[in-house]
């Protein structure tokens, strides 16, 4: 009897698909590698310590919660906690005390992810929640940025403001833009990453390499990054045309702060972005606009994290309103 073999009965498809959760997480990690290497180059050992602490703390928090609080099989093998850890680290300055990194990681996984039901259920991006938690709790540590390429082999860094902060505070103090612009690095340096800032956000080149990889692996589609960048560019361009003397040009906005990093790695987070292409376009455009609005009129020099978190809150609504076109429901 052939039935002695215990054949498997299941519903189709009977062939494995091209994606798996673990592989996608791994792809995101691979895409983050250039940004991480750039951070190592510019900020040295501090970048490594911050990243390592964040990853270890995220993994440990997820493991302990699943094992002892929820009492189920831990799923840290899916690498999602590692991704959260690396993303959080990429959003922190390299000289931040490691205890704060640990606190941020525990908050990111424990509160922002596991409290809502774990992987796939969190309404807000856990890494950004961790970052914002730290920004609110430790504003000084979170806004003193080490200067790149100095003191790379010790954790004591020489700090200085980021280009965005220079412009924002300068304009606030009434200095004209023309005097401020020479104080910030040139556009080529901004593109390569030779500036102060969070670990991951400094080198636009490295981030774009990661983006190319993500697109090649079909992990994300082009919609969110391109549309968010475009909407930020257009709105800042509009402001620049209207008030040329007191507003930096749109290229400055794209190259500084965490805008590119945010739209490539944070806004494209699966769980907290809309499910349909229509929804993604709307979501991305709103992120670009909100970022520029916060940068121009808010009290923080940087608006990326808040823009993404605000739009995260709208995702369920967007999912409800932006339905895909149902085949055949239109007129014949």
């Amino acid at each position, binding site marked *: 009897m052939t039935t002695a073999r*215990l054949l*498997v009965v*299941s519903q189709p498809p009977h062939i494995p698909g091209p994606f798996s959760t673990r592989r996608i997480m791994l792809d995101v990690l691979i895409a983050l590698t250039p940004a991480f290497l750039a951070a190592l180059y510019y900020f040295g050992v501090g970048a490594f310590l911050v990243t390592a602490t964040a990853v270890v703390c995220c993994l440990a928090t997820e493991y302990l919660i699943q094992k002892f609080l929820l009492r189920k099989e831990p799923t840290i093998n899916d690498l999602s906690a590692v991704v959260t850890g690396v993303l959080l680290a990429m959003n922190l300055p390299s000289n931040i005390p490691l205890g704060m990194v640990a606190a941020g990681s525990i908050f990111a996984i424990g509160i922002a992810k596991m409290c809502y039901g774990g992987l796939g259920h969190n309404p807000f991006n856990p890494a950004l929640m961790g970052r914002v938690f730290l920004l609110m709790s430790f504003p000084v540590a979170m806004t003193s940025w080490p200067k790149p390429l100095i003191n790379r082999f010790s954790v004591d860094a020489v700090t200085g403001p980021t280009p965005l902060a220079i412009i924002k505070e300068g304009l606030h103090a009434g200095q004209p833009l023309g005097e401020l612009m020479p104080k910030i690095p040139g556009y080529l340096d901004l593109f390569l990453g030779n500036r102060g800032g969070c670990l991951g956000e400094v080198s636009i080149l490295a981030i774009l390499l990661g983006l190319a990889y993500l697109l090649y692996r079909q992990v994300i589609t082009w919609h969110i990054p391109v549309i968010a960048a475009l909407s930020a560019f257009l709105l800042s361009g509009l402001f620049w045309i209207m008030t040329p003397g007191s507003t930096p040009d749109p290229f400055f906005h794209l190259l500084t702060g965490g805008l590119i990093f945010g739209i490539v790695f944070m806004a494209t987070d699966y769980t907290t972005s809309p499910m349909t292409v229509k929804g993604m376009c709307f979501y991305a455009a709103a992120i670009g606009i909100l970022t520029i609005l916060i940068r121009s009129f808010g009290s923080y020099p940087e608006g990326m994290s808040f823009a993404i978190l605000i739009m995260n809150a709208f995702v369920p609504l967007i999912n409800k309103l932006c339905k895909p076109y149902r085949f055949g429901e239109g007129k014949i």
Partner: protein
Amino acid sequence: MNPVILYTLLTAGLIAAFAAIVLFFIARKFHVQEDPRIDEVTNALPGVNCGGCGQPGCRAFAELCVKSPDMEGLFCPVGGNDTMANVANLLGRTVQAKAPVVAVLRCNGSLTNRPKHSRYDGPQSCAVIHALSRGETGCQYGCLWCGDCVKACKFGAMTLDKESGLPIIDEARCVACGACVTACPRQLIQMRLKGPKNRRVFVSCVNKEKGNVAMKACRAACIGCSKCLKECPFEAITLQDSLAYIDDQKCKICRKCVLVCPTGAIHEVNFPPKPKTAETSTTTGT
């Protein structure tokens, strides 16, 4: 007094007073005249909202009781006869006492009795397995071992036995609400009379295949041999599609059928252990 506290108290008080007045008039305007007995009946009911009576909740059942002139066909399985007597008392009516029933699983296809012929890979839900395939064994009628009934039970009366794979019904907790009966996609659970001293005899199988096929699929299947039919002195047993069924209204629990069943498909419940087995159990016990 600190002016801040004073102003706070004043404004809060004013708002509260204003809201109270508005609420008062709204309550007057939208007042619904309701039979006060509905509340009384609702209070007399168990209040678990299980849906066992066929109504969406206890209050809906109470409304129906008050409306119905003779309360025929209305029964709260959870509260049982006592509750219904109370309700009838409140409404000044009489009800006939119903014989208590309990959920009974009519399948003995445990993991050992029924060999697996395939491996199912998919969601662990009886509904899904039943809708889309035949299950992991040769019996297309039997338990699917996934416990949709256990998930449906609101009273913690059911557990899935790891050893046999079958659900176990805790008679003490079962209130006969019937949630498991609806949850089981294969209609294996039946509400049967509890019987005198909770003693019952029933055929624990619903396989309608011919004897040899049923036997091949499950060692404990009813093979339709009709031995029990001939043995029964009360004509309580019927045979249809190679499957015996004991009518619980006619059965006098004489247990003659249990003795002749070749596959052990007829189960007896809550009878004192037979003397022989009692002896062996005491000897092994000491």
